């Protein structure tokens, strides 16, 4: 992957690492989803996630744990941004709101995994590549759009109607976050009428190294 060809180079710089070096299935899928977005654009995230979840054997617990890992990433991202994004005024307030929402998603998803008799995924360590407010905003936009696509990709794989409805309640909030961050960036809050989907074979080839 040469950097100049990446659709979203800032995504390629996000590091996901578990302390022990032994990546869980959820972390592997998350890394793949980020790689898919980085290489081919965010339209690739949904088909990639859908395919990766279909290939794993975790059922709804596996899907919820993947969502939990994604929310860990977002919660950490905004908690850290409160300290180092250099934001003030309206943006500072927005970061506070987003941090709170993502933390609530983490807690709800952990509780749901436990209710289904599963073990909540452990929180990985993350590293976010930005050094100023503009860099933070660019990464925030990409991460929120990625989150929306990841949930939309996971949705059709969910067996339980209750879990699906709950995931829907979260993804709509992610979409709202994405629009708000995009407005801060003076970007189109709703860039397309649908999430575009490209060819799945392409993305799988691109992210193969992450799924070994």
């Amino acid at each position, binding site marked *: 992957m040469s950097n100049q060809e990446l659709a979203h180079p800032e995504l390629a710089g996000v590091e996901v690492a578990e302390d022990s070096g032994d990546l869980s299935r959820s972390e592997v899928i998350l890394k793949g989803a980020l790689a898919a977005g980085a290489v081919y654009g965010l339209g690739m995230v949904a088909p990639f996630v859908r395919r990766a979840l279909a290939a794993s054997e975790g059922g709804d617990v596996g899907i919820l744990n993947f969502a939990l890992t994604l929310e860990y990433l977002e919660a950490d991202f905004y908690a850290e941004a409160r300290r180092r994004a250099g934001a003030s005024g309206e943006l500072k307030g927005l970061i506070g709101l987003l941090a709170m929402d993502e933390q609530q998603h983490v807690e709800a998803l952990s509780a749901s995994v436990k209710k289904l008799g599963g073990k909540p995924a452990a929180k990985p360590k993350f590293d976010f590549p930005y050094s100023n407010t503009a860099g933070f905003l660019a990464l925030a936009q990409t991460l929120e759009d990625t989150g929306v696509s990841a*949930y939309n990709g996971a949705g059709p794989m969910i067996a339980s109607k209750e879990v699906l409805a709950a995931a829907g309640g979260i993804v709509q909030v992610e979409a*709202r976050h994405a629009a708000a961050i995009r407005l801060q960036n003076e970007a189109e809050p709703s860039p397309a*009428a649908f999430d575009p989907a490209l060819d799945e074979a392409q993305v799988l080839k691109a992210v193969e190294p992450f799924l070994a």
Partner: protein
Amino acid sequence: MPERKEREIETRGVSRRRFMALGGGSAAAAAFLAACGDDDGMTTTTMGASGRGSDETAQFGKGDVGILNYALTLEYLETAFYAEVVKSGLFEGGDLETIRKFGSEEAQHVAALTAAVKELGGKPAPKPKTEFPLESAKTVLELAGTVENLGAAAYLGQAANIESPEVLASALAIHSVEGRHAATLNTLLGQSITPDGAFAKPADVKSVLKSVEPFIVG
């Protein structure tokens, strides 16, 4: 986009359950239903009590066709609303651009939903005759905010009732766009982008139709 959906629906007439079996999803759905109660911190749903609410949209057709036609009716309404707002001359500059863009996205939803209904062998719902109060920029923006937040909640209320995985994937792709529209309008209005908090709430068919009734004149 509509072309792609048509093709997918054509080639995959499987139900969501069979699709999941193919995809390696867990079969223990009954256990999940029992385990995933109301007190887990996630939003509760309108169909939670009965476990099935697809009859809600029976007046629009059977099963997924009914849900798609219900969505189509709402998208027709949104499209007509934005078209009238653009013509009203109440907006200019960036706000007008946003309104135009959202209107064009709603029109694309109409086209995609119409195609999907036909592919499922159904008859697309007729375009309703609509009328909207367009008094001032402020009241129009407020109405737009109401309509978009309601639209997002309407999709959320139906997601779990959809049988076909392809229809569900399409509905989810539209649902999040409605969420983006809603948050944008809320921002323009100086309101919270997430009025329901961290978990968006669904709306049932009855309350959605009651809310839009004043704008449908035939």
